[in-house]
């Protein structure tokens, strides 16, 4: 929604950064800029009002999957030890790994396709907050499922994706480590939840308070 402005503020800031004014010693941003510099379409040269269809599809797919997996996570942890809980834990893990894969795809796409520029009337502080929110969300798209995966392995339950594809353990099986990772997965998931709420609230504010048409970049039918 809110213009996945991962480092969106666009062409002019890009240029200034290339000129050495880069104050953000952020590796992530650096990668993005490097990818963009290496031949990705430049937003300045091909301005477009909306996100590409692929970006829109990936965005809504991820949005639905993350909100569903999050809610499911909250629900399942309160179940008593039962067949239902084991089933739902596994579904949660499968969905979470799917989100991880989807996020990798999305990041790759995003690295090569700059989003449309933000409305020019948008104040600088909002750009900064939007920028930071999107960075953090992308970080958590990876950190949350990776922490869940690690926790699962440490607890002695290696992940078998959809019940057929065994995924490797990349942390040792260790009950103490599992106890440590459990609140890490939860804390990161809650942080992602909070950012999603902020993200949705901002998108709604743009739509109904600012009325700047920002949401239609992610929901093209709104502008018809």
């Amino acid at each position: 929604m809110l213009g996945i402005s991962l480092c969106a503020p666009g062409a002019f800031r890009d240029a200034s950064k290339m000129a050495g004014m880069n104050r953000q010693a952020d590796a992530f941003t650096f990668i993005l800029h490097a990818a963009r510099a290496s031949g990705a379409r430049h937003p300045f040269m091909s301005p477009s009002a909306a996100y590409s269809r692929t970006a829109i599809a990936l965005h809504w797919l991820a949005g639905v999957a993350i909100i569903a997996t999050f809610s499911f996570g909250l629900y399942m942890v309160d179940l008593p030890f039962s067949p239902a809980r084991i089933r739902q834990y596994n579904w949660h893990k499968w969905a979470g790994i799917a989100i991880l894969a989807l996020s990798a795809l999305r990041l790759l796409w995003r690295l090569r396709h700059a989003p449309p520029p933000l409305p020019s009337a948008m104040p600088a502080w909002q750009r900064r907050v939007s920028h930071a929110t999107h960075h953090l969300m992308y970080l958590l798209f990876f950190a949350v499922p990776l922490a869940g995966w690690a926790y699962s392995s440490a607890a002695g339950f290696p992940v078998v994706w959809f019940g057929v594809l065994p995924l490797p353990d990349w942390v040792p099986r260790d009950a103490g480590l599992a106890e440590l990772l459990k609140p890490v997965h939860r804390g990161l998931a809650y942080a992602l939840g909070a950012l999603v709420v902020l993200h949705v609230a901002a998108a709604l504010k743009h739509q109904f308070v600012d009325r700047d048409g920002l949401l239609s970049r992610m929901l093209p039918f709104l502008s018809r």
Partner: protein
Amino acid sequence: MRRFLIVFACLLPAVAAAQQKLLPAQSEVAFTSRQMGVPVDGRFAKFDAQVAFDPKKPESAKIAFSIDLDSVSVGDAETVREVRKPGWFDTAKFPKASFQSGAVKALGGGRFEIAGTLSIKGVARPVTVPATLVQQGPNTTATGSFTIKRLDFRIGDGDWSDVSLVANDVVVKFRLALAGVPPL
């Protein structure tokens, strides 16, 4: 009486020679169960064996094995609490699982096939256990694995009997170190 005692005393070493000793610290009894495709490993910390076994005379072998089911560890702490419950091992009522050998067959190359009866949770079933013996110094290690069907023993009945959730097949693996086994 005196003569009887002498005869008894003479017999004692013979009996002792026929008895091998299990070395628990070097032995392991483990199992793998599957939950929706996920292998969940477990093991038993306490078990004991009475073994009278001469590799040259397998037909006269006698092996009795027992496992203290309360000593189970599997998955996380919650899973351990669960498997002790009546629906699974019911360790309060059936604290031990046992195996009693019947015919033992030598297959050559240190490999043996031990037919016997496995009793868990009040259910006795025939099983065939393959074992491979390796001798090193004074000790002999017997390793092997076999598969049992948990529902044959009513392990995880009721709500848990759905085998698409917890597979029926459970692989049991063992490595038993024994002292005093005559040479192969």
